[in-house]
């Protein structure tokens, strides 16, 4: 509990310090300031609802580009919808990915919030960043660096990046699972090349790797193994890698087509293919519509089973996480964005702004579906 209060104080302190610092930065020669606000709402067929708010501010201080982003997520896990004491309720409680104790009644909604702050500074292609995220049971920090450079007559951009994150996990009180403090460490690296192919075509290719160590299962979830209810257990190390490519093509009727593909694999046996297509189209000079579709398919982890019949699971590992099984998914939706031009002058804001609204639907082969709605406002002063 003491940890939670400390981290909330740290987050509040960082926000207050950032806001207090803005006037001073202005006097120090701030230029090109821009702010944006995005609200997102996610709701799925299981009743999980996530309300996210993103506030981003950026500016230049001489040759240094600065950015600051604050994110607030409000997550609601639904109450168990089954008669108390029934087998259905017991099963639902056992597999719940939320704490269940005297303080977190399974027949009431469980609410958690997450706050994070990410800052970065960019100087002549070099980028340094710091990220901190706070939840009631999870505290994460990350440092990142990157470098990108244009070569071949500015027709090729090469980018290298890396990060190290260290997370402290302190599960909340729970009736029947594991609540010992734990950790997770992640080392990340990426290499990305973006090439101008023609006057209207660009190609981007990249590869990324992540090495993750520490707790990687849900400490609140149990699994039925050989008829017994036991805590979920995943390996504590995971090597993840992916390669991706996307082509962006400008089309002469004032539209653009983006086609992307990603292959992912890891040493748990999960592999996946994701392919997507996006079509952007100017409807008027300031109004742009976007339509998109994404297909996803994955092969599951070697230790994933629909039913564990042998004691000990598979080599000691057992999971109730459907994300580690075989499945396919579809995502489609649309977005409209409107460049306000000088319209905001009417309400006293003499700066160009952009309003955005998007609506997307996600389905997978496990009879899961979700709706994602986003709306946002960006102003460049």
């Amino acid at each position, binding site marked *: 509990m003491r940890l939670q209060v400390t981290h909330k104080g740290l987050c509040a302190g960082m926000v207050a310090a950032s806001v207090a610092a803005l006037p001073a930065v202005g006097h120090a020669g701030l230029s090109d300031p821009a702010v944006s606000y995005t609200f997102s709402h996610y709701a799925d067929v299981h009743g999980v609802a996530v309300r996210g708010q993103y506030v981003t501010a950026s500016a230049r201080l001489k040759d240094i580009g600065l950015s600051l982003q604050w994110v607030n997520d409000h997550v609601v896990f639904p109450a168990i919808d089954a008669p108390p004491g029934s087998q259905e309720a017991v099963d639902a409680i056992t597999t719940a990915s939320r704490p269940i104790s005297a303080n977190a009644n399974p027949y009431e909604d469980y609410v958690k919030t997450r706050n994070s702050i990410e800052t970065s500074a960019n100087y002549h292609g070099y980028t340094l960043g710091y990220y901190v*995220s706070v939840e009631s049971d999870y505290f994460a920090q990350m440092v990142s660096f990157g470098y990108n450079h244009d070569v071949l007559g500015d027709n090729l951009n090469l980018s290298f990046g890396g990060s190290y*994150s260290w997370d402290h996990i302190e599960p909340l009180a729970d009736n029947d699972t594991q609540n010992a403090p734990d950790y997770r460490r992640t080392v990340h690296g990426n290499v990305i090349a973006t090439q*101008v192919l023609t*006057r209207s075509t660009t190609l981007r290719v990249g590869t990324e790797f992540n090495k993750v160590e520490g707790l990687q299962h849900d400490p609140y979830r149990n699994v039925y193994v050989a008829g017994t209810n036991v805590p979920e257990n995943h390996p504590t190390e995971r090597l993840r890698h992916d390669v*991706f490519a996307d082509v962006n093509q400008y089309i002469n009727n004032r*539209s653009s087509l983006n086609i992307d593909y990603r292959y992912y694999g890891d040493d748990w046996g999960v592999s*996946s293919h994701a392919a997507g297509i996006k079509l952007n189209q100017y409807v008027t000079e300031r109004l742009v519509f976007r339509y998109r579709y994404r297909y996803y398919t994955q092969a599951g982890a070697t230790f994933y089973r629909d039913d564990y019949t042998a004691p000990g699971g598979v080599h000691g590992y057992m999971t109730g996480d459907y994300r580690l099984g075989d499945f396919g998914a579809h995502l489609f939706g649309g977005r409209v964005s409107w460049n306000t031009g000088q319209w905001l002058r009417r309400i006293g804001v003499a700066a160009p702004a952009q309003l955005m609204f998007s609506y997307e639907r996600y389905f997978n082969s496990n009879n899961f579906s979700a709706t994602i709605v986003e709306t946002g406002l960006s102003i460049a002063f």
Partner: protein
Amino acid sequence: MKKLRWLWVLGMAQVLMGCATVKPYEKENLADPIMSISSAEALRELKWLEAREGSTGGAGGAGGGCACK
């Protein structure tokens, strides 16, 4: 998987060799906002997709540090 790796290596080689020399004044279409790829949007999407799928990546950003997965 090996074939995919070779395809990726060939793609990288193609990129590194440079396919065309496009002058700055010929990049009007490339500079149009509808040609930009928003990393902020990609990272927002990756956050909720990671909570629903067993894979990650493709947004070109740093990883780790989020219990929302």
